[in-house]
């Protein structure tokens, strides 16, 4: 267990070297968007006072809805997509073929797989919570920059315009939704890891198989999502049934991905 924790600490350290700069870059862009909105507000206030036109209300939606803000938010998820590939291929393609040393470690090879996966889990939580903290800081600055009579206070969980993808997918407001959305992403990550190991094990054939496996994960999930709109379905399927089936599917795919990866790491993977 200690060896696994040391490996996890090692992987996390490597990931934080990418994650922290990405979060800082995202924060800087978010503050630029904030100050841009405050500048616009001041210009609008001046214009309204001069022309005696009633002022509109301002809220955090004016900050988060500005063009730069969603771009800033998406930097971190994009890093996760990039790093999910990079974390494996650097071991083979980087200097010194590090995978050789990793596979020679006197621990179960699945520790490599799980240390990388859990690194993403911890990194994901850190990124999620840092963004939540940034919302709080931006909220306080914006609240103090706007005159109270023109400021609409929103709960910190509603600072993104409702029904927008960012709000719906990244910041769920129930623990069920949180587990579901982040569980879906984690299972997708494991499927991708499995696909990478297929490619590392069987070269071109493995790459094709891996791509099919990865795409099949999404196809399966969205097939379940669409069950209640399939015309020929003989049963009544309630939305709660779909939700439970999706949850079971996510868990099943995590187990299948781990099993395939275990077999590949143990028997097939090539250095």
């Amino acid at each position, binding site marked *: 267990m200690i060896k696994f*924790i*040391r490996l*996890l*600490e090692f992987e*996390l*350290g490597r990931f*934080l070297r990418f994650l922290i700069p990405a979060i800082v870059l995202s924060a800087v862009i978010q503050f630029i968007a904030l100050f841009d909105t405050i500048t616009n507000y001041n210009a609008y206030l001046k214009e309204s006072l001069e022309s005696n036109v*009633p*002022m*509109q*209300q301002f*809220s955090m939606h004016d900050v988060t809805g500005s063009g730069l803000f969603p771009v800033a938010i998406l930097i971190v998820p994009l890093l996760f997509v990039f790093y999910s590939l990079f974390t494996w291929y650097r071991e083979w393609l980087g200097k010194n073929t590090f995978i050789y040393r990793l596979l020679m470690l006197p621990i179960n090879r699945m520790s490599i797989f799980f240390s990388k996966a859990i690194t993403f889990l*911890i*990194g994901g*939580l*850190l990124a*999620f*919570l840092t963004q*939540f*903290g940034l919302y709080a800081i931006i909220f306080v600055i914006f609240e103090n920059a706007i005159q109270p009579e023109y400021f*609409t*206070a*929103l*709960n*910190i*969980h*509603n600072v993104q315009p*409702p*029904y927008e993808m960012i709000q719906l997918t990244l910041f769920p*407001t*129930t*623990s*069920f*939704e*949180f587990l579901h959305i982040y569980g879906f992403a984690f299972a997708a990550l494991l499927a991708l890891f499995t696909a990478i190991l297929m490619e590392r094990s069987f070269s071109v054939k493995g790459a094709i198989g891996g791509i099919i496996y990865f795409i099949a994960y999404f196809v399966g999930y969205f097939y379940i999502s669409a*069950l*209640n*709109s*399939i*015309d*020929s*379905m003989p049963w*009544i*399927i*309630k*939305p*709660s049934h779909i*939700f*439970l089936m999706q949850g079971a599917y996510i868990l099943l795919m995590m187990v299948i991905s781990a099993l395939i990866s275990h077999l590949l790491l143990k028997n097939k993977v090539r250095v």
Partner: protein
Amino acid sequence: MRYLKLSISLILSVIGLAVYFVTVPQIDEDELVHLTVQAGNEEILDDYSFNGYIYNYSSFSLTNEDILVPANLPYLEMLDAREEMEIMMLKETYPDFVNKLAYGTNTYSYLISADEEYLTSAHFEYQSNVFSEIYSKLQFRALNKETNKIEEDFVTRELGSNIFYASIVGINENYPVVDVLIDTRLSNHSNENFEVSELSLISYNFETKNMTETVLLKTPDYIEPVVYTAVHHNESIQAFRSFDSETSEEVSYLVDYDKDAIIKREAAGERLIVSDDSRLYSIVDTTLVEYDKTSQEKVSAVDLTMDFKENKNMDFAMNELFILDGKLFVLNNNEIEDDSERNQIRPTDLVVYAISTGEILVEGQFTYGGTEQVGAWAASIDQIKQSPTKD
């Protein structure tokens, strides 16, 4: 220190997640909608439920005893909740009959007729992507409440290829006969950009299996029911409204299910109301008029006492009107008028009149609380019904 990065990350994650979920806003149901009776006898309201919507958050149903907010239900129940509370109540009592309508994979545009003996429904059976096929398959269902037996029959309508939309807009049951009204939108063959609305009455007999279809009205204007509800209670007449594009005036129509006829009302600026006992009323300015079965002869007329406080918007065209148990309910949903007020959810005013005298029985106001916590931007109450009781 060993494992510093891991320890700090895990501690931050656990604390942060706890803070995140502790700060998730929950509207206290008791605070969400509150009815304050400002004048009159508040006990009059005890028998009614008020259904409305907090925009971007949830629908709600308020009775004098409690409030039901689907968004506050346990998560899985919330997923299965339906906005119309009467559907939720029926679903509890008659799941086999209602679930197919509420969750059916190929059920489209359904209405239910509920009376003491039967639940009857009609819906389109969605098994194709071709409009003329979707809207040609109509399914009728009837549940005998005593025996719990469900009858299901399909009928096929003859439709041309120029149909592009249809919906069921009315239902009336007199078992074994059920009548449904279907609003069909057709493109005009000579000009594809020109639409025609066709209001058809379809009668189906569960015993003889006979179906008849009669086109009651063809109009180039959109026609819509005055009251939108998925559950009807066998009112023998139903009011519709349309906007006459030539005269730019609102036109009222009345469908009489007993006579299989439609009557166009000529009175400009009137609002038609069908009471729960199928009587026809209209309001013009501040006068409430009751009409006889022909809808042409006035039975009575009363002036409504209009002593509202200043600044209240009492433009009837903006209000929801209901007549139940000999009382006229006027709901005035005050919408925000410009962007400068977008953080204010205005209250809904309620006035209840005695239709026999026109005097005000109750004056009250619904106020909404805690809504800014969930980012809600408007609220309205759009339906009053007898308080739901389980059979």
